[in-house]
């Protein structure tokens, strides 16, 4: 094969050669004013580019805000898992040194006591409970109960201190032991003024943190919380039982005989009480076990440890019917598997719907493109008519048509084709979904097919026939290959639309005809497991992209035309 338009093979002075030579001799081509031509061309084009950018800017911003950002957020949510480490910061740290065998140490229970106590005051422990419940059934109620139950541990100490000295149950003495004098003065002033907001921020007394390592920290948390969340004065609120627990820990650990801070007598008396053999104590582990037996099993601790990193593959593993275990990812039991099956069903049904649309749409598009313009336009309106009615109405109409007491069954019974007591089940199953969705998506197949077919000149068919081809051969060898781009475009449209379809399968799909998107919707709006929904959505996105890629390899994306 000769190539008439190939590169110059001449070495003589052709225009191209002249240009090349000029290039080689004098470096870059210069514009009239001496600047390199490339640069001045770039400058001339910049204005155009800026204008083009300004024109698309509104859409670009809209797409970024309403499309790209949510997708990015969704992708992020499918791996994001900060709730555990944020809610239980001490616990996750303490669990870091636990090997996962047997029960964790008392340190872990201690950390969990403070974490959950604070979380319960913030009312976020139930949220963590729901999160962990996705991984371990029962975690939700466990956390809900523990939020209330943890007071039992603190009250053991609170009651004994109170019996010793009424002041231990008063706000003022605690504030004096822990707070700085400046702050107390400022707070008193503020309390007297009875104004809104602007409360002086609680400051620990110098030396309090060293004197009471645990209690000062606990009191600080309590005071700040009281100020910001409850907007009450710490001078008037007696502390949480958690603070008493912390105080007990401090008194038990050190000798306070030489303590000379505020209320030294009160503190020293308490120290003596703690040292006396009559003083009742309870370990954190026992306290937890008291609240709920589940705390005494390793599973809950293993779950917390597994999900303590900020990012997790747990949602994705869940989405493919696997689960995270201390020994790595494992497939779920066969009877718990659901998502892979749903993915397969979604793909299968989408393919069936796509092929039904091709089979039904091709003849219509063919007819449309071969009719005179006016008739074609009228028929086109009929094709588009379904778009003018609400999707819900159309889907519900199929319900009326297909149900057992519906139009089609009635007609079949009347014709005697079906016995009255064995009416066909055509709705709330796969059949119903396929029928309704084929109907709804058909225009998306017909439109691209039509626009491609109407660009195929009738002279091709005539030419084929004049060359001796029968009608069928002319169609199959000449017309059909040229209409493939339309089929391709329609198929991609229909397949991608149907793979993410939600409303129709929800209404007519029953239990056997629902799609993965119905499951996603369930997790978004009912179970509120957004992470899993996001993981499922991401997998769906990847599957679609993979199929698109495969399509490109097999058919070629150049072979897709919308007209």
């Amino acid at each position, binding site marked *: 094969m000769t190539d*008439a338009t190939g590169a110059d093979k001449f070495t003589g002075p052709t225009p191209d050669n002249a240009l090349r030579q000029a290039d080689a001799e004098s470096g870059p081509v210069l514009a009239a004013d001496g600047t390199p031509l490339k640069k001045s061309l770039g400058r001339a084009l910049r204005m155009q580019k800026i204008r083009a950018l300004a024109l698309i800017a509104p859409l670009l911003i809209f797409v970024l805000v309403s499309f790209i950002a949510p997708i990015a957020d969704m992708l992020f949510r499918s791996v994001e898992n900060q709730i555990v480490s944020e809610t239980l910061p001490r616990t996750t740290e303490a669990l870091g040194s636990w090997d996962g065998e047997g029960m964790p140490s008392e340190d872990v229970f201690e950390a969990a006591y403070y974490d959950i106590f604070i979380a319960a005051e913030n009312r976020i422990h139930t949220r963590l409970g729901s999160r962990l419940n996705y991984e371990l059934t029962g975690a939700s109620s466990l956390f809900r109960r523990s939020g209330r139950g943890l007071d039992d541990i603190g009250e053991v100490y609170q009651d004994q201190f109170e019996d010793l000295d009424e002041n231990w149950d008063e706000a003022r003495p605690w504030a004096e032991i822990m707070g700085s004098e400046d702050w107390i003065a400022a707070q008193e002033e503020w309390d007297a003024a009875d104004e809104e907001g602007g409360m002086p921020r609680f400051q620990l007394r110098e030396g309090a943190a060293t004197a009471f390592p645990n209690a000062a920290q606990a009191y600080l948390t309590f005071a700040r919380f009281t100020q910001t969340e409850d907007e009450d004065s710490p001078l008037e609120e007696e502390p949480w039982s958690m603070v008493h627990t912390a105080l007990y820990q401090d008194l038990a650990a050190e000798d306070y005989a030489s303590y000379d801070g505020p209320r030294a007598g009160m503190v020293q008396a308490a120290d003596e009480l703690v040292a006396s053999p009559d003083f009742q104590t309870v370990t954190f582990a026992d306290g937890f076990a008291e609240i709920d037996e589940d705390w005494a099993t390793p599973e809950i601790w293993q779950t917390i440890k597994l999900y303590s990193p900020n990012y997790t593959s747990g949602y994705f593993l869940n989405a493919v019917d696997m689960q995270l275990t201390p020994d790595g990812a494992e497939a779920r039991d066969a009877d718990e598997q659901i998502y892979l099956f749903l993915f397969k069903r979604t793909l299968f049904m989408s393919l069936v719907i796509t092929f039904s649309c091709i089979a039904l749409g091709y003849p219509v598009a063919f007819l449309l493109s071969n009719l005179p313009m006016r008739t074609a336009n009228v028929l086109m309106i009929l094709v588009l008519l379904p778009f003018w009615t609400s999707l819900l109405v159309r889907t519900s109409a199929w319900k009326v048509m297909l149900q057992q007491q519906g139009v089609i069954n009635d007609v079949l019974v009347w014709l005697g084709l079906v016995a009255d007591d064995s009416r066909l089940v055509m709705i709330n199953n796969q059949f119903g979904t396929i029928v309704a969705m084929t109907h709804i998506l058909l225009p998306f197949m017909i439109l691209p097919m039509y626009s491609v077919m109407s660009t195929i000149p009738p002279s091709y068919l*005539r030419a084929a026939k004049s060359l001796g081809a029968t*009608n069928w051969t002319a169609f199959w060898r000449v017309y059909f290959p*040229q209409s493939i781009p339309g089929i391709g475009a329609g198929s991609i449209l229909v397949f991608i639309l149907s793979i993410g379809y939600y409303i129709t399968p929800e209404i007519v799909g029953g239990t056997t005809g629902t799609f993965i998107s119905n499951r996603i919707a369930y997790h978004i709006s009912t179970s509120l497991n957004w992470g899993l929904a996001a993981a499922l959505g991401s997998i769906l996105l990847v599957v679609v992209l993979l199929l698109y890629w495969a399509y490109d390899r097999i058919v070629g994306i150049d072979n897709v035309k919308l007209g």
Partner: protein
Amino acid sequence: MPDTGTSDAFVAFERVQKSYDGETLVVKDLNLNMPKGEFLTMLGPSGSGKTTCLMMLAGFETATHGEIKLDGVSINNIPPHKRGIGMVFQNYALFPHMTVAENLSFPLEVRKIGKSEREKKVQRALDMVEMGAFGGRRPAQLSGGQQQRIALARALVFEPELVLMDEPLGALDKQLREKMQFEITDLAHRLGITVVYVTHDQTEALTMSDRVAVFDDGRIQQLAPPDQLYEAPENSFVAQFIGENNTLEGVVQEVKGETCTVKLDHGEIIEAKPVNVSKAGERTRVSIRPERVEIDKSRLGENAHTLKATVREFIYMGDIFRTRLSVAGNDEFVIKTRNAPDQVRLRPGQEVEIGWMPEDCRALDAT
């Protein structure tokens, strides 16, 4: 050479009519007989029904009335693919998804011809149009002229006896068109095929054809060999449509055998050859070819007719001079004179006397 006898006609249209909408006749009473091996051109203005006739012959349109015969057999009910007529379409209609070779082998495949023979025939057809090296290309990778040749080769590869071509050179530039005109006629005569060729380029029609059918208004206005068509147009449409032509309007005063006298609307009385006027009092349009008008009376015979004229414009065209004159109230009267050494060059405003022989002056219908 042309033989118009019905009995041995290869292609025959008999009283054929065609209407698309049931209201107007696009083809009105078409009668046409073509002997085998003839190159016939259908020439006419746009919308005159040429393509329609071709489509009826090819079988893509059915005649509303009348009969079309091929080799003596009525083909009205034979579907297009069984007619065995080769066709070259205006836009070539090369199948874009097939290579050139596949395009050419398509008609052979549907005729169930074996692979080796198919390849031989395809190569021969490609060589015939000097495109032997292009078999592997797609039509989109060819130039207009190359596509045209492939279309021609495809229409000929299955060796049809009749080939139809609908303005096959319409999309080509002048030079290529002239080259292809020659190649097509050459091929047609070499292969001895019968060709019906449609064009609205009159030069093309005159240079290529054995006979030309001039179409207008759904009728054949004249069917004749090119020289006859040019020199002896049978009505004023043909006279106007073919070549350049001067007309003078007037009324017939007397018809006497081979001559008639016409009183022009401007007042002059001239003699002309009556073509389709029959009696005195009829309005007529007198037609004279520009190259038959002389400004040098010595070149004309005894009974030459002369008229006074004023020069309006003189155009030097190299091989000829083209002079526009005012003659008998017609400002668009054109004469053409050969660029000979002794030829006078007229100047605008000059008064001259022009003349012609009465037999070159044809009295035609006035419409």
